[in-house]
């Protein structure tokens, strides 16, 4: 057992990646067990997840829908998730834990909705403006958290949780007072010109959604990777994240870098906010802190806190959450099971550090045992 663990997960090369994959596989096996216990066919259920996400063909489709339209829907949900997990990743690199992604998303979504979303601007101006407003408002919230951290030494976890709820309740008040749609009980849908997703685009005899910001998400992920690995800014952020005293000794300004990290993280969370509220859904539900901000923490961990890893991890988690609707309608299983599997992936990725230590310890034991054996033979 130990031997196989070491063989599978030991060694330096791509170790974090392999541990992440290990976490995913164990969680999926766990999901199989749960599905068996409640009397469902696990493989059919997992196939449904893929079918619901447009990665496998369904048996039948409604008019003007096929696998491609489902896949576009997946990309639409994936876009904000990539941004949100990047926001968490950047903060983690700087040694900060950004649990305020949800609040930043709300701030960006709300600001963009009330300024551009309800205006009569034409699409060419409205869409970039939504993105810019999203970036700015997210960055402002991030800057506030960073400032509280370095000026008053307030733990960023505490201040972000406070801000999450403050922002949520304030926006709930404004939505319920001025912008509520009496039928859906959500904010009125924003104008199509400002929306970052083209809804029900008709082409090739199909009707599908086009997430305009998806290419941007990929570009930004690559850009973040470049900034972190190849530039002085990234180096300084990482240095502060690894050891504040060492960075300070090397003459790197702690305060400036904490601010910078949070502003960057906030800007990314803002992009997540506008692509979610002004793209994927098009309205804001009052009284709810979006759970995506919390799931993004998990996704970032699963992606080994690496920008490119975030893309893959987001992809996986979005498949599970997006496909679960189809799965529950086909198998009659509760939709919550998807969240359960996701939660278990998170639990196992939170153990990744322990698994790494366990494996290296086991490898050392095996090595010494092997040496003793070799010595006896000689």
């Amino acid at each position, binding site marked *: 057992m130990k031997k196989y663990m070491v063989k599978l997960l030991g060694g330096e090369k791509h170790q974090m990646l392999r541990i992440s994959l290990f976490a995913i596989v164990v969680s999926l096996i766990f999901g199989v067990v749960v599905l068996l216990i409640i009397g469902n066919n696990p493989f059919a259920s997992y196939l449904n997840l893929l079918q619901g996400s447009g990665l496998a063909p369904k048996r039948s489709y409604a008019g003007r829908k096929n696998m491609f339209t489902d896949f576009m829907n997946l990309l639409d949900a994936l876009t904000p998730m990539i941004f949100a997990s990047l926001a968490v990743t950047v903060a983690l690199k700087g040694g900060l834990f950004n649990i305020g992604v949800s609040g930043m998303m709300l701030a960006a979504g709300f600001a963009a909705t009330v300024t551009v979303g309800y205006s009569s601007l034409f699409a060419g101006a409205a869409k970039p403006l939504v993105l810019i407003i999203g970036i700015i408002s997210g960055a402002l919230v991030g800057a506030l958290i960073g400032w509280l951290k370095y000026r*008053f*030494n307030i733990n960023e976890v*505490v201040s972000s*949780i406070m801000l999450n709820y*403050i922002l949520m309740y304030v926006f709930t008040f404004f939505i319920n007072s001025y912008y509520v749609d009496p039928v859906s009980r959500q904010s009125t849908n924003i104008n199509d010109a400002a929306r970052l997703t083209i809804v029900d685009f008709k082409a090739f005899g199909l009707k599908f959604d086009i997430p305009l910001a998806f290419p941007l998400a990929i570009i930004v992920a690559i850009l973040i990777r470049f900034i972190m690995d190849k530039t002085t800014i990234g180096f300084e952020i990482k240095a502060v994240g690894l050891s504040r005293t060492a960075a300070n000794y090397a003459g790197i300004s702690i305060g400036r870098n904490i601010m910078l990290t949070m502003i960057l993280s906030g800007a990314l969370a803002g992009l997540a906010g506008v692509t979610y509220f002004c793209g994927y859904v098009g309205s804001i539900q009052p009284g709810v802190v979006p759970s995506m901000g919390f799931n993004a923490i998990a996704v970032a961990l699963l992606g080994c806190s690496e920008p490119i890893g975030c893309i893959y991890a987001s992809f996986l988690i979005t498949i599970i959450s997006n496909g679960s609707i189809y799965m529950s309608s086909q198998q009659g299983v509760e939709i*919550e099971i998807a*969240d359960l599997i*996701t939660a*278990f992936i998170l639990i196992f990725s939170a153990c990744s*550090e322990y698994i790494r230590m366990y494996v290296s310890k086991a490898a050392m034991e095996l090595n010494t045992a092997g040496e003793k054996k070799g010595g006896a033979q000689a």
Partner: protein
Amino acid sequence: MIDTIIIDGLTFALPMFIMAVGGIFSEKSGITNLAVEGLQGFGAFTGALVMVIMMNSMGNGTQVPYYMSFVAAALGGMLYALVHVILCVKFNGNQVISGVVVNILAMSLTSFLTRRINADFFGQTSNKFILETSIRFDVPVLSGIPVLGAAFTSVYPFEILIIVVAIIAWYVMYRTPYGMHLRACGDNPHAADAAGIDVKKVRTVAVVLSGGLSAIGGMSYAYSISANFSPDIYLGFGYLAIAALIFGNWSILPTLGACLLFGFARSSGQAIIQKLGMPSTFNDLVRTLPYVVTLLLLVFFSKNNRSPRALGEIYDKGKR
């Protein structure tokens, strides 16, 4: 009007207080506990489940299920706290991350189980356990005092329970050897270890106790806010309890003050809105008060704030 402010304020503040005491137990031992939110939810789930089962088998009219639900909630919370223990104490994981993950798991696990149990055992599709409405009573004599008597009027039984448990918790923390060890583990685990204290064991017990205490708070909210258990229990009161304990400087009595401040800020805000005849949407603005107050006070007092010195640090025996 002052009566309602006092009554509603206490109903809100006391469950939050017991959750915060739970958080203090964990944090004083050196384990950051963002998991309070999940612990209270899971506790409320087990409590509500036992309540529903007992109500079905015993019928109405007795108070036994009501008290049993609190016992069950505490046990459930303690059991669930073991997840946090395994991740932080056994596996040396990052405590903040573990807390968040434990919360996410609690949310998905309880909503899944609630739906499943409702479907399998009670034959209904619902994500709720409907609870019997809690009785409320007036304390004789004391409730007759003018103004302050309101604190003893239409009291939930759980408020008495919380006060009793909190006194015991205070005694354990400050007057017993275990409490002494617990605080030592949070400030200087290596010294505690050198004195022969098993740091991991003390921390394990602390986090488990924290689960039980948080769960009592969660169960109380299940009764007082909506008289049912549903995923709506995850309103963020667990996080607010953490704010309260930080604001209370990780000591039990100042934390009670913080919770009362939150409770009265909330209830008086609501009362003022009602009095002025403003639309009920303004309630959402009032709900920000505890959070805004916390942030502002942290700005002014964070210099005096002294968290346990080893809070959040992974205990590594070999480190000096």
